[in-house]
């Protein structure tokens, strides 16, 4: 991975993984080693990791934090009411705790989260998620349109108009997020490098 980053001359990289709950550390050491390797041979590249919740393990989260990536992202994905349908094995409070712990362990690491719209969430529920994230000092937020990847995934309830994304984005800024990306095409890694501009 580090060699690829160096060879491609990347300014910024977003690293993610599938959930590795089969591993004792949930894959945290693999994240940490990858970050360290990139920093070693490509020190000018900013690093961002999009991590699973590691089942809330402070040890696993600490391992990733100790590797000091510039950004650690963990997506809430949707509003808590829809977790049963959209994130069956996840827990809203636990995901918030993950982001809160990262900030407590190293306040210099930017924290980032994202949610998908169009799953049947209500406006007030989205705004409450934004408030919850700001309460734990989450820095960056992305809001994007949910698209159904396969027939077995949740159906799209609504195609949210761009104006509504602008509205949520405006409120997110007012609530104190340092960087906000809110548009139908936004994904957690979308234009990720731009979010760090002016912050280093």
């Amino acid at each position, binding site marked *: 991975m580090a060699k690829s980053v160096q060879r491609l001359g990347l300014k910024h990289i977003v690293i993610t993984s599938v959930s590795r709950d089969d591993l004792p550390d949930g894959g945290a050491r693999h994240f940490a080693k990858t970050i360290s390797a990139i920093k070693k041979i490509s020190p000018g590249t900013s690093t961002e990791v999009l991590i699973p919740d590691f089942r809330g393990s402070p040890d696993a989260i600490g391992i990733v934090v100790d590797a000091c990536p510039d950004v650690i992202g963990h997506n809430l994905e949707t509003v808590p009411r829809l977790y049963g349908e959209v994130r069956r094995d996840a827990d809203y409070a636990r995901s918030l705790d993950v982001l809160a712990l990262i900030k407590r362990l190293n306040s210099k690491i930017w924290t980032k989260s994202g949610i998908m719209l169009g799953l049947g969430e209500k406006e*007030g529920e989205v*705004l409450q998620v934004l*408030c919850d994230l700001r309460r734990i000092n989450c820095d960056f937020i992305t809001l994007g349109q949910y698209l159904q990847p396969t027939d077995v995934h949740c159906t799209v309830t609504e195609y949210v108009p761009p*104006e*509504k994304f*602008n509205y949520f984005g*405006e409120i997110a800024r007012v609530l104190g997020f340092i960087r906000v990306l809110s548009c139908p095409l936004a994904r957690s890694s979308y234009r990720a490098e731009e979010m760090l501009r002016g912050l280093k």
Partner: protein
Amino acid sequence: MGATVLMPIVGATIRTAFIIEWYKQEGESVLQGEPLLEVLTKKAVFKVEAPITGTVYKLLVSDKTALPIDIPIAILAEEGDDDAVLQKMVVEALDALSKAPPIDKDLATVITCSIADHQAKVCN
């Protein structure tokens, strides 16, 4: 006797609130304790409950509006209320609204975002 609904005080540091959505429209009946509207502050989203059972006589402020706390936002009527008395309550409430302190500038920016159907306006 009808009731004037105030934007509630929700914390020592909160001076401005933003109406996300009215759950009830003028003329609709409402039960005491039933959510009347949903509000955003810089800390949380919360629901404002109807203080009495009756009907919504007048919504003084539209949704998607940022405004100070502790000012009138609606008038509720009880069965048998005198219309002249309710009208007087509306006039007094609008007068209080017109003298409301300025809102936090940052929350005010929400209402100036470039969305026609989300622009703020005070109902007349």
